[in-house]
């Protein structure tokens, strides 16, 4: 049966057909749809964990129990889950355990451009890398086999162009598997020094066996075109770019297994050609390996370390070819992403912007508070860092920053890793003000449930964390809830909590305007007789409001009637239709 499937959906298909029984993941672009799609199969138990570390530990437990298990995350999520990864590498598995990590070369939706292959190398865990949707499905199934055969978790690495491209997939049926029996074995599973020493020896032996496997596995294949003098070594999306740019004018070694890398296979391939070029995005992992095994290959001196490679980059760098380009002699204004019309985050950021508050930022839609016209973010690093970094900043600068700075963090990000930062604020005492932007969903990644929403991944009712009680329980006495659609009240709450002589939490509560269950008011309109064209409403950065011929205009297809522009207007010119 042939289907047109997103790489992530094909990945989920591979999990299904491969008999996966347990999935625990945390959403992160571009990995999210693997878990969402897999959750649609009733044979698979699937959940959103509060963060990637919890997800991987849960998948490890499921593997020990004898099931084929999976956890998925984006590249930076693997940093969070690195702790269980590096030691699950020692324990190995019972049921097969597969980890998906999605890199984001070009940073379409990420805060850095790290290369996850380094985690595979450092943790000594095998890593496969598919180059289209068919391979996503096939490699996942192969990953389960490798996991069980070699007693190791296996990472499957994708990237944005593989995860978010649809291509044709030949699907099969699910093979249902009995659980492998769990047998108590502390030497294998209890990683204290005495036992871990033995397992480290096992890991080194396993790597040697996996390297042997890499020499002959069908995952790594050559494509020799007669008469060619250049050999290309590549993997993942780069293979597709190379094929399109160079076709049959070169020969290929396409690596489906990127850790451990084969030795003889590469040496023998390279020996056939006058020149060997490595085409890989981000770091020089394959190229450095080539040099290490005495193969003279070039790569990064041609393609560099940043951004994506493409067919035109390859054609230009290797063939000197350039496409003809048509363009207008016109200044085309940029169109950066913005907070949506009716976004509940806007009210909070307006209050922060107006009062020129220093903002310790975090990861989510609200990172868009950093851009014009709100310009209300001073730093953003990683999930949860808003809360912990504010504490350090305030500890150094004392009262003068405590009364002028806040942390902003979403509900899902707070559950992910903001809680521990808040514990630190209470325990080590700074008068920090933390604003939890509770929009009742994980927004940026496309509406995933989380522990505060009262619903689980399968759509069933679930226990909901009470944020107010949680904040009080860690030692914050001042906890208050505001509705960010009420601009005046929101600003008042921010200013009062900044003045307070103890730490406080403000929960800005209003569901994401894009949620299907949210009922919107009718769009507003401008009474042009009253509008003075003062442009005060533009300070909100709402995409539905603009100025035409000196007067405010509201785009009725975008406006959801949240009313904050009407509250801001001093001339009462924004009114109901």
């Amino acid at each position, binding site marked *: 049966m042939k289907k047109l499937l997103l790489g992530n959906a094909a990945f989920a298909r591979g999990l299904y057909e491969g008999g996966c029984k347990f999935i625990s993941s945390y959403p992160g672009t571009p990995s999210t749809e693997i878990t969402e799609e897999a959750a649609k199969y009733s044979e698979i138990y699937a959940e959103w964990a509060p963060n990637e570390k919890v997800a991987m530990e849960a998948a490890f437990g499921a593997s020990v129990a004898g099931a084929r298990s999976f956890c998925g995350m984006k590249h930076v999520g693997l940093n969070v889950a690195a702790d269980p990864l590096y030691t699950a590498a020692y324990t190995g598995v019972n049921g097969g355990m597969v980890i998906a990590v999605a890199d984001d070369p070009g940073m379409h939706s990420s805060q850095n451009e790290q290369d996850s292959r380094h985690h595979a190398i450092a943790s000594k865990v095998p890593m496969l890398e598919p180059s289209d949707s068919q391979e996503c499905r096939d490699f996942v199934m192969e990953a389960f086999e490798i996991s069980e055969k070699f007693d190791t978790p296996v990472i499957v690495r994708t990237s944005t*162009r593989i995860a978010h*491209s649809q*291509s044709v997939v030949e699907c099969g049926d699910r093979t249902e598997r009995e659980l492998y029996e769990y047998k108590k074995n502390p030497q294998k599973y209890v990683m204290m020094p005495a036992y871990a020493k033995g397992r480290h020896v096992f890991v080194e032996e396993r790597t040697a066996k996996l390297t042997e496997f890499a020499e002959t596995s069908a995952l790594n294949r050559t494509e020799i075109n007669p008469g060619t003098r250049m050999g290309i070594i590549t993997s993942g*999306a780069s293979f597709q770019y190379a094929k399109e740019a160079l076709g049959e004018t070169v020969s290929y070694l396409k690596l489906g297994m990127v850790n451990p890398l084969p030795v003889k296979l590469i040496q023998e391939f390279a020996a056939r050609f006058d020149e060997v070029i490595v085409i890989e995005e981000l770091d020089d992992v394959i190229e450095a390996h080539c040099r290490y095994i005495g193969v003279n290959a070039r790569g990064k001196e041609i393609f560099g370390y940043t951004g994506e490679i493409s067919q035109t980059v390859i054609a230009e760098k290797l063939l000197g070819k350039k496409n003809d380009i*048509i363009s207008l002699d016109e200044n085309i204004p940029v169109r950066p992403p913005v907070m949506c019309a009716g976004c509940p985050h806007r009210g909070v950021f307006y209050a922060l912007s107006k009062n020129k508050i220093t903002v310790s930022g975090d990861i989510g839609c609200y990172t*868009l508070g950093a851009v014009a016209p709100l310009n209300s973010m001073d730093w953003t690093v990683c999930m949860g860092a808003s809360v912990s970094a504010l504490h350090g900043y305030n500890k150094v600068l004392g009262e003068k920053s405590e009364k002028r700075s806040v942390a902003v963090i979403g509900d899902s990000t707070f559950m992910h890793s903001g809680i521990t930062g808040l514990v630190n604020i209470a325990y080590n005492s700074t008068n920090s003000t933390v604003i939890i932007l509770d929009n009742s969903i994980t927004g940026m*990644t*496309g509406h995933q449930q989380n522990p505060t929403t009262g619903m689980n991944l399968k759509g069933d009712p679930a226990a909901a964390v009470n944020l107010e009680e949680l904040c009080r329980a860690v030692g914050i006495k001042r906890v208050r809830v505001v509705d960010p659609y009420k601009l005046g009240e929101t600003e008042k709450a921010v200013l009062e909590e900044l003045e307070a002589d103890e730490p406080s939490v403000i929960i800005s509560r209003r569901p994401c305007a894009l949620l299907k269950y949210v009922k919107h008011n009718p769009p507003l309109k401008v009474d042009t007789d009253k509008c003075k064209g003062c442009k005060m409403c533009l300070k909100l950065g709402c*995409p539905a409001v603009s100025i035409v011929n000196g007067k405010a205009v509201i785009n009725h297809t975008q406006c959801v009637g949240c009313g904050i522009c009407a509250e801001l207007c001093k001339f009462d010119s924004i009114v109901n239709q």
Partner: protein
Amino acid sequence: METKSVMIVGVGGQGSLLASRLLGNVILAKGYDVKVSEVHGMSQRGGSVVTYVKYGDRVYSPVIEKGEADVIISFEQLEAARWLPYLKKGGKIITSDQKLDPMPVITGAAEYPENLIDKIRGKGIDVTAVDALALAEEAGNAKASNVVLMGVVSQKTDFEEEVWQAALEQCVPPKFLELNKKAFELGKAAAK
């Protein structure tokens, strides 16, 4: 068949994902190899978004680069102009004449250029421009302007009517099917 490259461009939230899925399913039904590359995540939030659709006997790269697109389908004028450098010489543009101010225009930091469609035509390019938003509202929902545009596209490409109808039934939830079929018909009529 040599690989054909189609870009669908617009503003995050305008429904380019449904448009690309429709086209992808039409192409698959015709038995071609096909790749559809989408954008998810942050850039979806009201930013400039692009989807690549490529088909032929065998498609390798899922992305389209400057000077490579046979057709650009645009949901908005400024986006048609922004992505114009991606058009191949002799390629065509099918666009909605809708204008959506990007944030730099809203805040007054930049101006929305005038007469973009005429300026693109001035470069000798075959441009079909329709008022997709008005037609979508006529069909019953402004959000169906994506399907109106695909109705236009159906008249500018060689795929049969039945295949488009089947793709609509496959990609659109039953409760919105009638509305979208109407939007598609209005798009077809506007193309003539």
